Every structure is written in structure tokens, then in C-alpha cells.
């Protein structure tokens, strides 16, 4: 990866020098060896800060929202999940594909920074959960590419819904106690929303207690309203990058909700994976006369 890091820096320099883009979004080393954070480079000399290591976990796509009104292009380094995130924003008409320059990197799977923190530098660090389950380590869309186009990481040929099935097996009360326990912890810090490429509303309903959707008080009840509503809002749009769960400060298994939605959409309306093609019809933005009929 060191080798690729050099290529990344050179390419970044080139792009900024040639003026192919005004800003470049990538990763740089954070304060700890197990943290790499998003970097925003607008001067060729700063390109030296860019790196590519096994902690470049952050999905960068969402940061494009900050450059919507920039004249000129933004260049952004994309792994599989970042690329799907970009497609999400393109499909939601939030960014113009012509105005972004995607530099593809096939992802070996990133390490779990929390584990790394516990185990220490010379231990064998496991992959982070989102990468464990990732099925698209290679960018599904890009303009330029650095390094091998095919990731060494082996991927499951179909998504694993076993955890969802596990819950579905429980009794209603078991289910409720589990979800209530999860969302008792929720601080409603909205980190999950802020990092999510599918949460790209200009004006989020959770920010207006006036509209009466959500009270100010932090109650399990309202937390669950928040959780379910968000699951419905990203249903059929979630690009499965797992960032929401990764950034949750109280470790709520948020993907359990999103995976449930994905599974049911596949079963009810046919296999669909968001973020692969921005031209797709959205499962909840369309219908088939032949949809399953349960209402009678």
C-alpha cells in the first residue's frame, strides 16, 4: 500500500497542478496509528499528506455534499463503498456526476480501529465488520484508477442475512425487548445520519420538533421512532456501507435494521442493490401491478 500511497500523491499533485479539480478528497494519517481520517487537499504541496493504508475506512462520498456549489471539479478517492455512495448522491440528484472526478482504488478490506486500539500495534488486527460483509470492494464506477483493478479480498456471492433471520425467529416480546434495549442506548447524536450517503436531505425532519414528528426529550419511544423512520427513509436506498453502525458511539447494530429492509425488498419486489446504477428505479419510488398481494 505504501507503493500506492506514492502513486496517490503524485496523481493528486498532477490533478491539482493541471487544474483538473479544485479540491481532492482522500485520507490522511490521524492522531493514532489506527486512525486515518478524511483529508481535503487543495494545494499540490499538501498532496504529500495523502495516504492509503488499512485504516482508510471512512466512506468519503458524503463529503461531496460540502462542495455542491463549488465551481469546477472535485476529485475523490473511492473504494467500493465510496463509489456506491457517490452513485447514491448522483441518483438523488445531489451531485452532478460530471462535476466529480472519481479515482478508483480496489479495497483489500479495512482493519477494525476499535479492535486495534484494544489489541495494540503488533497484534493481528481483524477486518472491521463493514468490510467483513462487504461484497463490492472494487469501485462500481470511476474515472481514473490506481493499482490492481481486482481486489484480493474474497467476497460472498450473496449477502448474508443470517442475523436478520435470527431475530425474525424470536417471539414478538423477545424482539421488542432486544430493539428496546438497543435504542435505550441511543443518544440521538445523529452521527449515523450525518455520515450516511443516503441521508442527504437538505432539511431533516428530525431537526424540527415543531413539526411534531419528534419530541425534544430522549425517550426510548422517540428513539425507536427515529430508528424506524430512518430505516424506512433509507429503505431501497441504503448502499450497505455500514458507516452508520461504525460511527455509532454506543454501538447500536444499526445495520440490523437496514439489512432487514434490504432482505424484504429483495423478497418482495425482486433482487435490488442500491448504488450500483444511478439509473435504476427506486423500489419505493415505483411499483409493479404484480406486486405481492397480502392486503385482500
Amino acid at each position, binding site marked *: 500500500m505504501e507503493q500506492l500511497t506514492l502513486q496517490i500523491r503524485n496523481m493528486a499533485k498532477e490533478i491539482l497542478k493541471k487544474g483538473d479539480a479544485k479540491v481532492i478528497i482522500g485520507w490522511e494519517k490521524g492522531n493514532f496509528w489506527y486512525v486515518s481520517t478524511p483529508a481535503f487537499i487543495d494545494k499540490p504541496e499538501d498532496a504529500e499528506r495523502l495516504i492509503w493504508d488499512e485504516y482508510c475506512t471512512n466512506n468519503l462520498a458524503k463529503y461531496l455534499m460540502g462542495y455542491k456549489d463549488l465551481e469546477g471539479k472535485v476529485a475523490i478517492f473511492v473504494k467500493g463503498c465510496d463509489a456506491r455512495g457517490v452513485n447514491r448522491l448522483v441518483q438523488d440528484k445531489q451531485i452532478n456526476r460530471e462535476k466529480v472526478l472519481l479515482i478508483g482504488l480496489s479495497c483489500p478490506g479495512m482493519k477494525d480501529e476499535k479492535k486495534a486500539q484494544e489489541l495494540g500495534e503488533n497484534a493481528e488486527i481483524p477486518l472491521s465488520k463493514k468490510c467483513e460483509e462487504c461484497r463490492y470492494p472494487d469501485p462500481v464506477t470511476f474515472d481514473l484508477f490506481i493499482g490492481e483493478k481486482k481486489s484480493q479480498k474474497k467476497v460472498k456471492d450473496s449477502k448474508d442475512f443470517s442475523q*436478520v433471520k435470527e*431475530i*425474525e425467529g424470536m417471539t*414478538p*416480546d*423477545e*424482539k*421488542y*425487548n*432486544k*430493539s*428496546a434495549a438497543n435504542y435505550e442506548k441511543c443518544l440521538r447524536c445523529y452521527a449515523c445520519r450525518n455520515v450516511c450517503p443516503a441521508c442527504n436531505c437538505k432539511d431533516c425532519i428530525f431537526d424540527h420538533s415543531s413539526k411534531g*414528528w419528534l*419530541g425534544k*426529550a430522549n*425517550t426510548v*419511544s*422517540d428513539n*425507536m*421512532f427515529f430508528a*424506524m*423512520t430512518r*430505516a*424506512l427513509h433509507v*429503505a431501497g436506498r441504503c448502499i450497505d456501507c455500514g458507516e452508520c453502525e461504525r460511527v455509532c458511539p454506543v454501538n447500536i447494530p444499526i445495520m440490523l*435494521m437496514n439489512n*432487514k*429492509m434490504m432482505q*424484504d*425488498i429483495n423478497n*418482495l*419486489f425482486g433482487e435490488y442493490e442500491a448504488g450500483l446504477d444511478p439509473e435504476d428505479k427506486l*423500489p*419505493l419510488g415505483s*411499483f409493479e*401491478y404484480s*406486486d*405481492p*398481494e*397480502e*392486503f*385482500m
Partner: protein
Amino acid sequence: MSVNEVEQKWEPKILVFACNWCTYAGADLAGLGRLQYPPNARILRVPCSGRVNPQFIIKAFQRGVDGVLVAGCHPGDCHYTTGNYFTRRRFLLMRRLMEYMGMEPERLQNRWISGSEGPKVQQVITEITEEIRALGPNRKLRDDQWNN
């Protein structure tokens, strides 16, 4: 009064979202026909079942209803041509999500009821009321400040 007295006095509270053109008219027809059914359902009129935002349902449970019925025109009969097809997709998903969170499936139901199906209104509301009564009061998703 004591807790079990409360329990005894408890009556299921059921909220019905009815589309103006089919189900609401069907309920009117049930009235004209003097078709008797349990007085537990409260009908809320919306122009189309496609207007019913799943968020309303969660809110209703938070506020303390024991069951919700969302009803509209049969597929193909929608006054607005396609509204109910979107309803169908949304609620196929919504109901699964509710169950997944631990809500008993009987508590959120959907039906297609046309303007000519007065008897169906009677039958459906009777069924649902009994199902909910059998389940007992809903405490799930309940927001305690609305304790009644």
C-alpha cells in the same frame, strides 16, 4: 381504581386510516345499512391510502392506540389511478419492519375495501377489534407521557 379494574375497563382503541373514495364511502354504506360493529374503531379520513405516511402509524402507537388499520381502494380502482399501488409497496415493508421491532402483526393491518363493501367494513373492523382485544393493551413503542 385498582390496576386490574383498569384492565377490565380497558377497551381496544383502534385507528382506521380510510381513503375518501372507497373505504370511507364503504363505511358510510355500512351505516346506511345499519350494519352493527364494535365501537372501538375511529376512522380518520384521508384523500387516498397513498397519503398515509408510515410515520403516522408509529406515532399512533407511541401515543397509545392498540391497533391501526390502513384501508383503501382495491388495486386498479384507485380514484387517483396508482396511489394504492404505492401504499401496497410501502406497507408490505412497513408491516414487516413493525413485526421485526417486536410489534404483534395483528396490530397493524391493511385491507382493500371498496365503496360498495359495507359488509366488509363491518366484518373487518369486528375481526380486528377481537384480535386486538385478545392481545390486550399495547405497551410497545408507547411514549409514557401519553399514559392513558
